[in-house]
């Protein structure tokens, strides 16, 4: 156990300090191994007990969580059932530094109680199959009482030391960590917003690892001494369709558009082939929840579908009801891959004879446009499984009363399935339900997935015990170290 590691990351949230539970998610503390949650998500996006030893449902709204034995906070105090309740209950206290309305809503707790020293009993207001998944939310870190020495009194392999807002977040090894001694004496995370700048800092030897390395330079840098890491995450780039009006209200045309897009081409051109994987469905292939739906590129089929929809091709241009088939694509600029993706889509569409235009604006403005029916396709990027559970995002995006259903997609069958998914507790049954959900989405092109983003990281030679996590929630474990 020696040495120090410097990680560069695009931005360092200021809200972590001093209380990672506060208001918003405590990603940095979770990523750097300072805090831990009751449940965790593994690298296949399956749920596993983390600080908990086991979780069981004793009634539709009652969950019993048994804690691991012998876990201590950084200041040495023991992790008890009461400590867990003490850590979670302030989140619903308004004005408390840990106050976090979003998580309170996520948990929707009616009450908490202890059953002995090691069992916490959670009572929810309504049945919710996503509850155990919610316990993996980074903001739900279990913390002991803070002190000057341990302002973030977590349980993880690293101890929070200090932070400079927007600039640096520094942790040191917790040599008493229950699973073993961490690999670094000190880890510094520095914020470098611009990926190209971060790449230069890496080359200058100022940082040892870059999270979100520029994809375009990945091949070059990993051909040298550096190691490259790349794996798909659940962040999905997809098109919201205007299902209420315009050409996209016709499922045949939606499907045609989907077939017209060469997703691998997009990944190659926009993400240099490493920054993502083509998406056939909402969840990354091979990971938990993903149905077996491949991304298909078939321009001929696309044209056939257009013809089936009643469009006619004249002079290389598809006409619908006598007018040229035109598709307005909107997107926003805050993520660099959005605009080229839209541009390429435009090119693919025009290749089969559909005229398309691209407008890059702000997320809010674009969202308003699609909601108002002024645009046909809205390219956005969402994390499909914020806590590893598949339900919430799909409900928001596609349920007819979904809060973010700006394309006004409505499908009674899908609504019913999504409702059932939330209320079904058996994992196998749930998987079956969400398989059906994904089949419907694909068959109806309710949204058009394009690719899953891969997190592209680069580290100096010799880093072991590190993997890219599909929800980007974890970086360091006690096993991460530099081999000599």
């Amino acid at each position, binding site marked *: 156990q020696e040495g120090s590691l410097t990680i560069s990351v695009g931005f360092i949230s200021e809200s972590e300090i001093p209380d990672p539970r506060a208001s918003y998610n405590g990603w940095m503390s979770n990523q750097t191994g300072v805090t831990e949650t009751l449940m965790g998500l593994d690298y296949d996006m399956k749920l596993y007990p983390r600080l908990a030893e086991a979780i069981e449902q004793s009634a539709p709204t009652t969950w019993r969580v048994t804690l691991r034995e012998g876990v201590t906070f950084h200041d040495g105090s023991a992790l008890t059932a009461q400590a867990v309740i003490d850590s979670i209950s302030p989140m619903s206290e308004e004005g408390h530094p840990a106050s976090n309305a979003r998580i309170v809503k996520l948990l929707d707790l009616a009450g908490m109680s202890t059953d002995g020293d090691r069992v916490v009993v959670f009572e929810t207001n309504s049945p919710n199959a996503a509850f155990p998944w919610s316990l993996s939310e980074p903001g739900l870190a279990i913390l002991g009482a803070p002190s000057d020495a341990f302002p973030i009194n977590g349980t993880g392999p690293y101890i929070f030391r200090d932070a400079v807002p927007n600039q640096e977040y520094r942790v040191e090894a917790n040599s008493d960590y229950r699973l073993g001694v961490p690999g670094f004496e000190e880890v510094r995370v520095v914020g470098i917003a*611009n*990926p*190209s700048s971060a*790449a230069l800092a890496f*080359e200058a030897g100022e940082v040892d690892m870059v999270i979100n390395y*520029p*994809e*375009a*330079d990945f*091949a*070059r*840098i990993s051909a040298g001494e550096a190691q490259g890491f790349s794996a798909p995450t659940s962040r999905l780039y997809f098109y919201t369709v205007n299902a209420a009006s315009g050409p996209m209200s016709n499922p045949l045309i939606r499907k045609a558009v989907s077939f017209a897009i060469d997703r691998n*081409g997009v990944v*190659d*051109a*926009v993400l*240099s082939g490493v920054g993502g994987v083509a998406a056939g469905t909402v969840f990354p292939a091979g990971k938990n929840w993903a149905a077996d739906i491949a991304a298909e590129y078939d321009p001929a089929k696309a044209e056939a579908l257009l013809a089936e929809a009643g469009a006619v091709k004249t002079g290389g241009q598809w006409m619908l009801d006598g007018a040229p088939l035109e598709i307005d694509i909107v997107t*926003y*600029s805050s993520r*660099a891959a959005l*605009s*080229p993706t*839209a*541009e*390429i889509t*435009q*090119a693919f569409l025009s290749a089969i004879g559909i005229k398309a235009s*691209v*407008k*890059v*604006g*702000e997320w809010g*403005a674009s969202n308003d446009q699609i909601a108002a029916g002024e645009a046909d396709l809205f390219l956005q990027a969402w994390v499909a499984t914020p806590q590893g559970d598949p339900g919430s995002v799909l409900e928001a995006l596609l349920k007819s009363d979904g809060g973010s259903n700006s394309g006004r997609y409505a499908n009674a069958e899908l609504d019913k399935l999504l409702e059932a998914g939330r209320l079904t507790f058996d994992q196998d049954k749930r998987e079956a339900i969400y398989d059906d959900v994904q089949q419907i989405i694909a068959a109806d092109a309710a949204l058009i997935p394009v690719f899953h983003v891969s997190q592209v990281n680069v580290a100096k030679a010799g880093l072991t015990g590190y993997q890219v996590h599909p929800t980007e929630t974890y970086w360091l474990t006690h096993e991460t170290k530099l081999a000599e």
Partner: protein
Amino acid sequence: MRSVLILAVFFALLIVFGAALAPHDPNALNIPKRLSPPSTEFLLGTDALGRDVLSRLLHGARWSLGLAFVVSLISLAIGTCAGLIAAQGGKIADWVMMRVTDTFLAFPELVAAVVIAGLLGAGTWSLIFALSLTGWMRFARVARGTGLSVKTRGYVVQAQLAGMPAWSIARWHYLPALLPSLTVVWTGAFARAILGISALGFLGFGVQPPNPEWGSMLLDARVHMRSTPLLMIWPGLVVVTCVLAINLSGDALRDAIAKDA
């Protein structure tokens, strides 16, 4: 003076005929050939989406040079008027004008851009509007500064006595004194406008993709800086050469004006 004229003509030709000279469609994707090095087919190579860099540069002249020219001229006009009103119009006009200028200077361009984009919708006009709206203050300050000192000159007193209308005094007495510093500021504004157009393009208005524009070509190329450096070098060179040429001709213009004096 002659070199300035030649340059101006060259730029004008570039704006008007640049697009016609392009060997390829500037927006045609060619993913298999992405990031290819210069070749006989693609003289300057292709970009990340496989588009011909040379064609994009040639087409981009209209956006980058043309718009920058318009924007810097509008700023010049607005700013000079504002500055002269401040210098000439007496204490109250001066006070009001300068407070307005301060307000605009303090007002972040970004906010203006976001808002104008939303209110007017993306498009060339809102781009011109936003950039002019946030670009005139330099001219105003410079015009006022020099104007204040010209105001005390005997010939201005004489013109006032003669009862010359204010605009005419501004035109004939203030402007010649202002021209040298204004040309310097103008060339600066031109350069800023070229880069500003691309900065605002990133906020989602003005030149919309896939229309080529030098500034965003430059920005887009940044991630390829190490692996395909040429991609960043071409638009960079073009911007640098143009801005440099414009700066130098601004100085030549200034000297020519001063010599006439």
